[in-house]
């Protein structure tokens, strides 16, 4: 099996409370983003945070799992939409912890039933590498619905 390596970096200046960071996608060069502690734990103010990057990672990982499970069932999707919400909370005695990730998926599947989608979604959740990792420490939930008109 090929090993796939992806790299990112952040430069941080000053303290957590008053400093700020710039996070860059080194492998692809596809983004360079500002982040601060205030944008992480309070209002985002247009800046990203580790949790938002994890939400993007989880949504992207999950959509590829769902697509391959649907193909396996012989119902290749026309279109899938996956929305992910990652929740960080203060846990007594442990400080800030990522406690939950919720996936909401919608799929346009010509001639397929809700049951088939439910079967594919269950397999996608079981097989998504990111879900498998964080299930050990956070609650992962998902819902999958057929897109209207499909």
């Amino acid at each position, binding site marked *: 099996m090929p090993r796939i390596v992806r*790299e990112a970096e952040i430069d*941080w200046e000053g303290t957590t409370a008053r400093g700020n960071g710039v996070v860059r996608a080194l492998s*692809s060069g596809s983004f360079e983003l500002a982040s601060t502690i205030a944008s992480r734990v309070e209002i*985002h103010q247009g800046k990203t*945070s580790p949790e*938002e990057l994890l939400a993007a990672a989880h949504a992207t990982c999950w959509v590829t799992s769902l697509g391959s499970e649907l193909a396996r069932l012989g119902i290749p999707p026309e279109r899938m939409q996956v929305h992910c919400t990652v929740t960080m909370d203060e846990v007594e005695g442990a400080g800030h912890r990522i406690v939950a990730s919720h996936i909401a998926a919608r799929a346009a599947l010509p001639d397929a039933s809700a049951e088939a989608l439910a079967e594919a979604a269950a397999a996608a959740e079981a097989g998504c590498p990111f879900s498998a990792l964080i299930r050990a420490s956070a609650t992962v939930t998902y819902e999958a619905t057929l897109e209207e008109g499909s």
Partner: protein
Amino acid sequence: MADRTAHVSWSGSLTEGGGTITSVGSGAFGPLDVTWASRAEESDGRTSPEELIAAAHAACFSMALSHGLAQSGTPPERLEVDATVTFVPGTGITKIQLAVDATVPGIDENTFRAAAEAAKENCPVSTALASVPEISLQASLT
């Protein structure tokens, strides 16, 4: 409590089709294209879940380390953190390597290494990803 959101739209099959991280809650980035080929082969200028995890972990670790250093009276001037995520299709994410290069006035090597190790153990992304088989850290002062 802080919720952070992202939305992805995908058209077509896994290998022939493609997706877009259309938007995130903060509006800080997107749209970003993703394909299976850019995830599993050459990135070709496109991001992937593993690159986003690398970015999340680098950002989380740097915040935790700067906080820890400030708490012990030696706030950092500058931290440069790299994260490298290794993904094996069919197996999952097998390894994350963190590397930090720091400018911290008035700190000795051992104290700095201990602070870096504590940040690696305790930052929220490290604890969320604690089931990754190997998370390594290289810490150096400049």
